[in-house]
C-alpha cells in the first residue's frame, strides 16, 4: 500500500507539470495583461512598459515559464500582480470558505442522494422511482444561480430563516458558520444529488440481481436489511467513484455559488484574477485545484480497498 501511494504521488508529478505548462501557455496566449489592467486607461506607454518590466512580463516566455516553475519548486508562489499580496496568503485566506462550502455540499449531496437512489432502486419502475428520476434530471437542468436565487427568496427573504449571504469562519462559532452555509450548500448540492442518486439507483439495481442478495433474502432478512446491509455495500465502488468525480466538478461549480451567496472563496478569487489577468494568482490556484484533484483521486482509490476487500494495492 505504501508503495502504491508513493507510486501514485510520483505519477502525479508529470500530470501537475503538464497542468502548469498548459495553464501558463493558455494565460500568456490570452489577450490583455495585468499591467494594462492595473495602469488604467490613462497610462502612457512608458508607464506601461515600466510596469511590465517590474512584473517581469518583458522576459521571453520560456524564461518566464522556467522562472515560475523554479519558484514553485522552491515553494514560492509569488505575489499577486494586482494586489501585491503574497499568493500563498491570498489562497490561505480564500481556501477556508471554498473548502467548507464544498464539504458541506458534498455531505448534503451524499446524505440525500444515497437514500433517494436506494428508494428509487427499491421501487424500480414504480411511481416513486419515476418521480425521483425525473426530479434528478430536473436537478441538473436548472442553472445553479437560479436555484440559489429561489432559495434566497424563500428561506432568507420570505421565511427569514437564514441570512442572504456572507461567510463566517468556524472560529466565529459553529452557529454563525453553519447558518451561512446552509443555503449555498443546499443549492449547490442539487446537481450532485441528481447525479449521485442516479448512479446509486443504477448500481443498487444491478447489485440486487446478484446471487448473494438472494442468499441474504433466504436468511430471512427484511427488504430494508437486504438493501442497506448487502446491496449498498456492494454498490459502493461506483458510488465512491462518482462522488470523487463530483468533488472534481464541485471545484468548477463553486464559482457561481460563491458569487450568488457572496462567499469569499477560491472560485471568485480565480474568476476575478482571470478578468484582471492576475497571472500569478490564476496559475497558483489552478495548480492547487489540480493537486487537490490528484489527491482526491488517490483517496478515492484508497477508499475502494476499504469498501471492497477484493481490491488491494
Amino acid at each position, binding site marked *: 500500500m505504501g*508503495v502504491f501511494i508513493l507510486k501514485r504521488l510520483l505519477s502525479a508529478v508529470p500530470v501537475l507539470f503538464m497542468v502548469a505548462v498548459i495553464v501558463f501557455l493558455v494565460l500568456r496566449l490570452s489577450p490583455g495583461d495585468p499591467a494594462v489592467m492595473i495602469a488604467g486607461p490613462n497610462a502612457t506607454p512608458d508607464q506601461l512598459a515600466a510596469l511590465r518590466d517590474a512584473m517581469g512580463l518583458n522576459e521571453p516566455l520560456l524564461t518566464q515559464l522556467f522562472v515560475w516553475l523554479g519558484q514553485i519548486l522552491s515553494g514560492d508562489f509569488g505575489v499577486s500582480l494586482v494586489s501585491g499580496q503574497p499568493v500563498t496568503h491570498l489562497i490561505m485566506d480564500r481556501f477556508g470558505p471554498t473548502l467548507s462550502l464544498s464539504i458541506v455540499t458534498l455531505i448534503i449531496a451524499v446524505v440525500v442522494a444515497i437514500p433517494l437512489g436506494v428508494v428509487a432502486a427499491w421501487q424500480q419502475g414504480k411511481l416513486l422511482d419515476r418521480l425521483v428520476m425525473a426530479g434528478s434530471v430536473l436537478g441538473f437542468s436548472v442553472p445553479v444561480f437560479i436555484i440559489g436565487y429561489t432559495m434566497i427568496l424563500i428561506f432568507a427573504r420570505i421565511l427569514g430563516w437564514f441570512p442572504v449571504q456572507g461567510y463566517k469562519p468556524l472560529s466565529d462559532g459553529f452557529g454563525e458558520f453553519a447558518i451561512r452555509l446552509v443555503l449555498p450548500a443546499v443549492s449547490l448540492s442539487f446537481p450532485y444529488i441528481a447525479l449521485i442518486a442516479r448512479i446509486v439507483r443504477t448500481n443498487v439495481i444491478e447489485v440486487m440481481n*446478484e*446471487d*448473494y442478495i*438472494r*442468499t*441474504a*433474502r*433466504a*436468511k*430471512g*432478512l*427484511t427488504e430494508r*436489511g437486504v438493501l442497506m*446491509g*448487502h446491496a449498498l*455495500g*456492494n454498490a*459502493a465502488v461506483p458510488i465512491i467513484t462518482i462522488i470523487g468525480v463530483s468533488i472534481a466538478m464541485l471545484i468548477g461549480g463553486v464559482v457561481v455559488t460563491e458569487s450568488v451567496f457572496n462567499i469569499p472563496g477560491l472560485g471568485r478569487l480565480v474568476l476575478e484574477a482571470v478578468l484582471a489577468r492576475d497571472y500569478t494568482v490564476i496559475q497558483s490556484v489552478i495548480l492547487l485545484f489540480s493537486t487537490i484533484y490528484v489527491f482526491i483521486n488517490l483517496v478515492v482509490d484508497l477508499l475502494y480497498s476499504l*469498501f*471492497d*476487500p*477484493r481490491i488491494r494495492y
Partner: protein
Amino acid sequence: MTDIASAPKVVLSVEELRVDLVPAGEKPIVRNINFQVMEGETVCIVGESGSGKSVTSMAVMGLLPKGSLAVTGGRILLDGEDITRVSATRMRELRAAGVAMVFQEPMTALNPVQRVGEQIDEVLRLHRKWSSAERKKSVLDMLERVHLPDVQRIYRSYPHQLSGGQRQRIVIAMALILRPRLLLADEPTTALDVTTQKQILRLIRELQDEERTAVVFVTHDFGVVSEIADRIVVMNRGELVETGSCDKILSDPADDYTRMLVSSVPSLIPRCGPIEKTPKVLDVVGLSKTYGKKGFGKSGNLVHAANGVNFTVRKGEITGIIGESGSGKSTVARCVIRLTDPSEGAVLVNGNDIASTNNLKAVRKKVQYIFQDPYRSLNPRRTIAQSLMEGLVNYGMADAEAYAKAAETLELVGLPAGVMGRYPHQFSGGQRQRIAIARALVMKPDLLIADEAVSALDVSVQAQVLDLFETIRKRTGIAVLFITHDLRVAAQICNSIVVMQRGQVVEAGTAADVLSAPQHPYTQTLIAAAPAPGWDFQNFRPSRAV
C-alpha cells in the same frame, strides 16, 4: 439407501404446484408438481436446463422473484403449514429456521465485501436472541462441523480469500446453522471440481444423518443423483415426468424422456481406440508459461501455469487434456493458438514452430479455438451470419461466397441456414455451441481446440454435441485437442489423454490406458472421485469394466 426406522414424518409436501409468469403467460412455467419429502430423506430433482427445477425450489423458499413469477395454484406444506398463504413476516421466520437453501454458485452466493463469519452470524442475529459471544461460538462450531480448517482465520476471511470448496462449505454452514427441518440445495456442487464435490456430498449426508434433515437436492448430474438420492423427481419443461426411488429410475425408467435423459450420461468406459499412423498435426515440446509481473518487489507471485508440457495430436485424433481446475489446461491451449505467448518451448503445427512466429494470421488459419461459454464467445450484437463469415472475410473471401460457406457449415452442425439472420440470444445453449463449432469449422482448420466446449451443456445436449465432434472428425479427419474436467466426457470421445496437475503433465497415454489403468496417484484420485463410477447409465445397469 438409508433405512428409515420409525414411521417417516413428512416434512415437505408439494401438491399440485403451479407457478406462472406475472402477468400470466401462455403456459404456466411450472405445473402439476406433486412430491413429498420425509424426515432424513434426500429427494433429487433432475431435468434439463430450463425444466423448472430452480423455480420449484424457489417457490418452496418463498423467494420467487416478485413481480415476475408467482405461485398461482396448489399448496406447499412445510410440516403441515401452507407457506403459500403465510404472511411475509412468518415466511422470514421460516427461512433459515424451517427451510434453508444452498445455492448453486459458491463464487457468487456470498457477499464479497463482508467477512464470511459475519455473514453466518447474521442468520443468528436475525433469528436468535443470543449474545454476540454465544453467536460467535456457535458459528465457529458450525465451521468445524463442515470440516473447515483453522476456523478462527476462516471466520475473519472474505469470500475471495477462500477456495470454491471452502466457500460452498460456508454456504452450507449458513444454511444449517439453525438446524432447519428442510434443506434445499440447488445444484450445490455443479461449479466444483470432482474431488471437492465428493467431499461436499459426503458432508451433506453426514449432517443430514445427525439432524435428520429432509433434503431436496436439485441437479442435472446423474452421477451425483445415483450417489445420494433416496428418491428422484424428474422434470421436463415445467412438468413432473416421473418420480420414483433412485434404483427404479436409474435402472428402469418408465417415461421416454427419463430414458433419454439417463442414457445421455456418458460412460466412464473409454470408447475410442488409439490412432497412430497419421501425421502429427500438433507437437508440443517443453512448453512452459509463467505468469506474473516483472518489476520491483513483485518477484514473489510468479505462477508457473505450464511447466515443460509435451504431447502430440495426430490427424484424425482427439487428444483430451484432463485435470482439475487451475492445473494449466487452458494455458496450454491458449499457447497453442498464441492467444498467450509461451515463455518457453516449441509448438509445432504441421511441423512449423509457431511459438515465436510473428505471422499469427497464418497460424490462425490452421488452428481454431472453441470456447467454454458458448454465450460469451459469440458477440451478442452480431448476427450468426456475421459471426460465421468473419473469419472467411478476414482471409479475403468475397461476402457472397463466405455466406454460402457459412450456411453450408451451419447445416453441417445441424442448424438450418434460415437462422443466419438471428442473434445469439435467440438460441439455446446447445445451439449456440453448435454455432461456435461451425464458426471454427468454416475455416477448415487442421487443428481444433475445444476448451471445455461441452461443460456448460445439459447431458442430453452434451451427448448431441459430442456426437457432432465424432461425426466431424470422421468426415474431415480433423485433429482435435479436447480439454475437459469431466472424465466421462473424456472417456466418450478421446483417443488419447493427457493428465495435468499444477502445470505439469503427470500422465499421458491412450484413453483406455489412462482411464482404466491409471498409473499416477493423481490420476487415480481423479478417477476415484468421479461420481457413480459403478453405473453404466447408457445401459441402465451397473458397469462391468470397473
